């Protein structure tokens, strides 16, 4: 069966052998042909020597999630050869390095096995062990390009841009590309039945990972202080922030930095620094992952009670405990929503892809300063570290940061008395003053019991008055956070709710179910506390599938807890094996539920 622009290529290599740039080159070549792509990197928590895979989904329909099938496997790692071969769909292709013989036991009759002597070709044409290993990667790109009909001039253009400053590398890389593509053209019938044909669907798009986008968003939002402790998969967010700052935030006159990045000794210190900097009037943030949230929890509760803006990016990974640090999950929803001891709850934002990571950054700072409370952006490894094709980013030049209710020197001068925790406006949000502005603004910031005037108290009524006022603020937050994305189908009995990176798989699943005449309405939640629209959506339906990437149905629990959603309507569809969720999972599970008679 011949298909066009609908193919999944998976490449199995050994980590630390430089295959990442080759895989990027292959994906970008297809993207440059105007064809939408999805890239997923499955890598070990290791520096060198363990199996790693890269998966490129070519999707002419422009879907955003991974597919649960492999059409073409490039099996470059002998260690995983058997497993890699087993993954190929019937009718698919397997490419392997035929320099050495492989066991005949591993044959499959229902796929086409193509042997290409990559090592031999590279050993004959390149000098030095390192170059030979690197060029072997480039050679498989050449072979796949020939098999799929990817234009060599597109690859050449990409290499020329990449190695603009190192011309000799362009020639050696092109030589490797030709080694692979010439061999494929000579020995196989190229292109194969599954091919890539030029389209015009990517000219307004970019390829970016979510951590890069979030780091860039923090620069655009005006963040000046970043503190963090390195943790996979969030580290590249601060790397991105720092790199963009080095580009955009160096004062041309003095050569000095208009930002400060501090590598903390641990996450407890990182969050302390963020709170200190925010208390002092800087936009400040920390990127982390689940274990970091656990360590930060005491301070998060402090910031909630003392009402200090705090922005945290949690790039979630698979838990519990150390879990699988290089695999994805949405498993920190509850631990973030209620982080810390005592009665606390926190504003959460759920970007669905790198584009939203960028736009969510200024929203997080605005909300955090407006509400004077921690705001956590819950990304995940899939969004944060994978390359996504997303629409080109735009910056609204009219944006003015919302710094919230901060009194300036003139306002303080005119006041008889300033009280830090007084709800003057009735929205539950008091006014704050910054140190160094005016002696009248001075107050004592404390995590111990305090009155609405800011004084220490152990008096029941005075204590309760303040924590009750925080609930007023919580409802103000509910009206301020981004509203859900709701889409209706032609039927209105059943719906799907998801968050974050579940969006791509669910959106695609809705199309596939619709093709089978199963219509589902859709609500993608963007924030906690849940907007009224979320509750209304649940009320409108007889059954609502809650699709999320954790074992315990954390989003479902939160819906029941925060808006008293009818739990009998909420059916969990849970994907938590560490791989990014795919549409096939959602389709299968919905069909199973329908077969059980759950749907109306």
């Amino acid at each position, binding site marked *: 069966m011949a298909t066009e622009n609908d193919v999944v290529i998976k490449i199995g290599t050994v980590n630390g052998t430089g295959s990442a740039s080759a895989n990027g080159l292959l994906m970008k070549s297809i993207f440059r042909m105007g064809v939408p792509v999805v890239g997923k990197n499955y890598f070990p928590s290791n520096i060198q020597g363990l199996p790693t895979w890269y998966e490129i989904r070519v999707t002419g329909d422009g879907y955003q999630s991974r597919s649960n099938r492999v059409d073409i496997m490039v099996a470059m790692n002998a260690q995983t050869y058997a497993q890699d071969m087993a993954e190929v769909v019937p009718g698919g292709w397997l490419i392997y390095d035929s320099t050495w013989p492989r066991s005949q036991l591993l044959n499959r009759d229902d796929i086409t096995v193509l042997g290409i002597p990559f090592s031999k070709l590279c050993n004959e044409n390149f000098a030095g062990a390192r170059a030979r290993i690197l060029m072997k990667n480039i050679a498989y790109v050449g072979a796949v390009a020939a098999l799929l009909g990817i234009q060599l001039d597109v690859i050449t253009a990409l290499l020329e841009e990449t190695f603009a400053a190192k011309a000799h590398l362009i020639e050696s890389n092109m030589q490797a590309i030709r080694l692979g593509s010439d061999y494929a053209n000579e020995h196989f019938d190229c292109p194969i039945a599954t091919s890539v044909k030029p389209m015009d669907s990517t000219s307004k798009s970019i390829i970016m990972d979510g951590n890069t986008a979030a780091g860039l968003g923090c620069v655009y939002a005006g963040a000046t202080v970043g503190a963090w402790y390195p943790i996979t998969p969030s580290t590249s967010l601060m790397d991105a922030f720092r790199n963009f700052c080095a580009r955009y935030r160096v004062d041309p006159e003095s050569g000095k930095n*208009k930002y400060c990045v501090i590598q903390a000794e641990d996450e407890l210190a990182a969050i302390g620094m963020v709170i200190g*900097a*925010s*208390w*002092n009037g800087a936009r400040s943030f920390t990127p982390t992952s689940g274990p970091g949230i656990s360590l930060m929890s005491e301070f998060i509760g402090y910031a909630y009670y003392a009402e200090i803006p705090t922005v945290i990016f949690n790039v979630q990974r698979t838990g519990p405990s150390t879990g699988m640090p290089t695999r994805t999950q949405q498993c920190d929803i509850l631990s973030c929503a209620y982080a810390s001891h005592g009665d606390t709850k926190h504003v959460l934002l759920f970007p669905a892809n790198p584009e939203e990571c960028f736009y969510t950054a200024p929203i997080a700072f605005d909300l955090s300063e407006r509400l004077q409370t921690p705001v956590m952006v819950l990304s995940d490894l899939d969004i944060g570290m994978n390359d996504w094709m997303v629409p080109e980013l735009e*910056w609204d030049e009219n944006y003015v940061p919302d710094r919230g209710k901060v009194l300036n020197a003139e306002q303080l001068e005119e006041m008889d008395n300033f009280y830090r925790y007084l709800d003057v406006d009735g929205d539950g949000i008091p006014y704050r003053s910054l140190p160094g502005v005016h002696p009248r603004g001075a107050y004592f910031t404390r995590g111990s019991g305090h009155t609405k005037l800011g004084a220490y108290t152990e008096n029941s009524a005075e204590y309760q008055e303040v924590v009750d006022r925080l609930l007023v603020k919580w409802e103000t937050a509910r009206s301020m956070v981004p509203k859900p994305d709701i889409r209706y189908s032609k039927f209105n009995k059943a719906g799907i709710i998801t968050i974050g990176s579940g969006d791509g798989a669910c959106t695609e699943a809705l199309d596939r179910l619709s093709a089978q005449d199963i219509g589902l309405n859709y609500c993608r939640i963007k924030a906690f506390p849940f907007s009224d629209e979320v509750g209304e959506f649940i009320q409108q339906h007889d059954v609502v599938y809650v699709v999320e990437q954790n074992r315990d149905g954390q989003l479902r629990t939160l819906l029941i807890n925060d808006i008293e959603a009818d739990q009998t309507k909420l059916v969990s569809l849970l994907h938590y094996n560490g791989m990014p969720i795919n549409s096939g999972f959602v389709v299968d599970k919905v069909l199973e539920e329908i077969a059980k008679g759950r749907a109306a």
Partner: protein
Amino acid sequence: MSYISKPKVAHPGMPKNKLGLTSRDYEGAVSTLCAGCGHDSVTAAIIQAVFELGIEPHMLAKMSGIGCSSKTPAYFVSQSHGFNSVHGRMPSVTTGANAANCDLTYIGVSGDGDSLSIGVGQFVHAIRRNVNMCYVIENNGVYGLTKGQFSASADVGSKAKKGAANNQEPIDPASTALALGATYIARSFSGDKEQLVPLLMGALTHRGFALVDIVSPCVTFNDHEGSTKSYAHTRQFYHHVIDMDYIPPAEEIKAAYAEGDAMPIEMHDGSTIVLRKVDKDYDLSSRASAFKYLRERFNAGEITTGLLYLDESRAEMHELSGNIETPLSQLPFDGLNPGNAELKKLQRRYR
């Protein structure tokens, strides 16, 4: 412990500082610590130091963690912002606050539990970063608020109120700071205001991390016979090594100092400290010899006090990271946001 609010009455004849303020203007709320607590004497010394330096109250930030010592920022300079953070985490909050606004003077008040047990990691790393702050440890060898457990600074053999002796080696903040490269290290005693006030003034003026470790007896849980952090024991084994005077910027050194005994050192803000060596062999510019000296005196059961180490040459946190001199929190948004045209240009790399 008192719930009476403090009347604010200043005698017309009270001395005024360069801002025209009296020491009453640097006071805070009434202390709720036990009567006779060493910490209250330290609070008085801080008030004196800040008053004499003429720091504008709102340009001072008072930082603390949790414990008896950490309550004290409420008891001085009520016109300054205070930050009573979580246990052992004052250094990180101060580091972040300082990163955001380098124009303020930061005083952190901590205790031996706060800095040497739960917060020892943050204490150590604030030194490593050379955060520009005055870090006070009110050191009494005991946990007061939880009623008398030994702290990490309790000496071997020192006895608890009920008689049990500590058998674990103490962590000495001064020699720890010396090992870590702190740039201003002083030790004093809450009962010696004459020595303490100039040491605090120097610490507040020093550019970089300034530690002032102060033996500050706990009258309720650690002031008995057999305790090495009691008033009596401290007075008996107290050993001055280098005392100092603080001379404000642009003021002449008027006091008479005997040749060889006095050493003036200019600070970054133009002020001068004059060191008066009690022990002529002591060299406060050498970490190695200072360490040896401290260790030998410690082994002899003595508490060495005074300015123990000084290095005015090392860069502090902002200089180390190449930061602009304007406080980051005061930079206008326009200069922080690269704009849409730049965003377009940047994205060519992502195609």
